[in-house]
């Protein structure tokens, strides 16, 4: 009973879920999120295809031996540069929350997770001088958005003799973006003008995944996901729909020797499916993305794998929403991490730090992302 209450309390925790924001999330649907737990974060996401607390593939849930709840908090320290200027920013987010556990004594696992799909949190400021009533008047424009799309997933996985794990999930993609435009004038005779609008999104998707264990040293995982489309309402009126991408992922995990695991994965998303929708609505379009990650986890004491492992990784990927037509943004990240388990492995904290470089033409940014994950096994 106490376990159930704790799980319910965690699931009902009122957290805002979104990934780190970026100037590369200003256009389109926003900055795509990475549904990965804090443990996978420290290795550049390379272990996400095998991490039960990540949301990349439902088959990964099969690795869970007990009811587990986890959430991650992400602190973003970012420096943005573009032709309009440069600025240092910071932001706190909660990118992933998951609860999952085995079904009795059967080799099946079910769970729910709540993660960020895209983030549209940003505030942009610009200054200009415009003629008003024949007089040049300085103006300051601020355009802000808060919100994004979230991915609510109900997933299940089944183990076949610890060799095959197959999983499936149903996704509800929903969210909103509260937009506001504010213009203030250098001449006090003009009153600042503020206008607001709210966009809301709804869509559903399904995903399938499989993990094949070749002994204890080698595992391969694959996943495919279809998100269909999202309907877009502006201020409660339907304004259109946007096709969402198919996702294809492939990962491999290799235990090089006791205490050292290496992993790699590649994920492709067909965001170009949404290109025509964005262009039709006056946007700048979208392009397919690929992300490749490589990482490892070194455990100083293989008998106690939860005691301060050392994680490391790197990733490179492209971003879907273009700022400049024909110039696709891309990012490179290197990360390290560690963690600790305590209370007889019933609780744990994982820490990860990633340095990310993103750029597209004259637009660039670099960021330190600090991830803290908490895991509880009631």
């Amino acid at each position: 009973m106490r376990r159930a209450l704790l799980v319910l309390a965690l699931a009902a925790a009122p957290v805002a879920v979104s990934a780190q924001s970026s100037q590369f999330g200003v256009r389109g649907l926003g900055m795509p999120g990475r549904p990965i737990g804090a443990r996978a974060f420290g290795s550049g996401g390379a272990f996400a295809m095998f991490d039960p607390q990540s949301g990349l593939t439902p088959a990964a849930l099969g690795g869970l031996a007990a009811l587990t709840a986890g959430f991650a908090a992400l602190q973003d320290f970012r420096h943005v540069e573009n032709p309009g200027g440069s600025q240092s920013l910071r932001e706190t987010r909660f990118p992933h929350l998951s609860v999952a556990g085995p079904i009795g004594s059967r080799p099946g696992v079910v769970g729910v997770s709540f993660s960020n799909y895209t983030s549209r949190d940003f505030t942009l400021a610009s200054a200009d001088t415009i003629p008003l009533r024949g007089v040049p008047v300085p103006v300051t424009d601020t355009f802000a958005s808060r919100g994004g799309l979230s991915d609510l997933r109900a997933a299940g996985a089944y183990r076949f003799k610890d060799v095959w794990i197959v999983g499936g999930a149903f996704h509800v993609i929903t969210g909103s973006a509260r937009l506001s435009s504010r213009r203030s004038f250098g001449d006090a005779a003009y009153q600042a003008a503020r206008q607001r609008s709210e966009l809301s999104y709804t869509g559903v998707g399904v995903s399938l995944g499989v993990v094949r264990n070749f002994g204890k040293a080698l595992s391969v995982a694959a996943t495919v996901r279809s998100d269909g489309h999202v309907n877009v309402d502006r201020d409660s009126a339907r304004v259109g729909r946007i096709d969402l991408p198919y996702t294809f992922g492939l990962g491999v995990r290799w235990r090089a020797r006791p205490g050292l695991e290496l992993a790699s994965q590649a994920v492709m998303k067909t965001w170009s499916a949404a290109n025509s929708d964005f262009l039709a609505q006056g946007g700048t379009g979208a392009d397919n993305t690929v992300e490749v990650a490589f990482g490892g986890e070194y455990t100083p004491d293989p008998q106690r794998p939860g005691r301060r492992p050392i994680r490391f990784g790197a990733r490179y990927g492209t971003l879907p929403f273009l700022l400049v037509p024909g110039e696709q943004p891309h990012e490179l990240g290197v990360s390290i991490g560690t963690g600790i388990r305590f209370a007889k492995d019933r609780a744990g904290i994982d820490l990860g730090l990633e340095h990310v470089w993103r750029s597209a033409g004259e637009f660039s940014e670099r960021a330190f992302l600090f991830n803290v994950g908490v895991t509880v096994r009631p």
Partner: protein
Amino acid sequence: MRARLRLGWQWAGGIAVLGAAMTACQERLTSPAECPELCPGGSAQVFDTTVIALQDRDSSFTGYVDRGAGPALLVSNGFTASDDRAVYRFAPRGDSITVRDTLRAYTVDSAVIGLTLVARDTNVNGLKVYLYRLPPTVDSTVSFDVVDPLLADPALIDSIAVPDSVNGGALQTVLRGADVDRLGLPVGGDSVLAIGLRIAAEAPTGVRVGSIAGGTAATFTTYVTVDVPDTGLVRNQSLNRASVFNTFVTRDPPQPSDSLLTVGGEPSSRAIIRFELSDAFLDSATIVRATLELVPTQPIVSLPTDPAILETRAVLGDIGAKSPLTTQPALVQQDTLPALQTDTVRVELTRVVQAWQASRVAPQSVFMLLRPEAASFTRAVFGSTRSPAVGAPRLRITYQRAFPFETP
């Protein structure tokens, strides 16, 4: 025991790291924007439009505050705005007072006439106020042509030289001995003192003096001695007489014209101006500035350093001259008129027009008045919709259309 302590430290450390990560860093989200790349939807566009007042629906109404009923009286000497003389009449002073239950005659030792200087042009030196005796029958029917000839040497009571450093406050003149006779109050019977004021200065100028409505009217005090026979007793008393009537008269006072909008003057005039902004406009525009523009028919002259206030109020219910006006400070606009206004008068009405957007029931009308009413040298006369040669009142509105938020 040691293991439990260590476990506790680990928990505390974990919670501290988590708490630091989540709360120690204040969010900072604003970054520079470069358009069009980082301007989804584009930039806000600002437009300008001019709306003329409804034809023949702008009017002046006269008679709100009568001449002399304002908070001050006008006195001037050839001032450009107007040439004025002030008049006070005091309460009657009897020829005897009661001492030991008996009415007894008295002898006047001295008298004091007090005035209040409300405002003057501090740039003009050598101000001198002259007090003249007027017939005790003076009343509201008197005109400049009647009063001005009476303000001559034979009726002069006294003059008060106002130091150049004095900008306002109490003035008084004291009459003693034979000078008391200048008051011209007859012996025997009730006597009424009425006085008229004119001024002189180094240059044509004007002053505003106190009035009954302002609680600062002139006062008349007599210091008397009562001789009580057979007792050897002498009583010294003072008799205070307040003003019971005051007014001022103006040479050739202008009359409001039906084809123009008059604001101010005596009796005071107010103007109502009506507009009709379309629902389509009010629905879709974000108003950033609305300015009422009024074209004066002639330069508006005010007393330098004593400006008048042009007050514009939103109308709550349009029933003409007696329309109830708003008391919300945000919907009341007060503008100080300069000493000489020759250009178009512009009144900012952004809040008022925004209120019209918020409630379509509210009449799209404004009332204009001049403060202090009936107590200022300023008189504003503007063109109306019936005087196209001058220019009708118009509302100049700067607005933004709905921002074209990009979808998604």
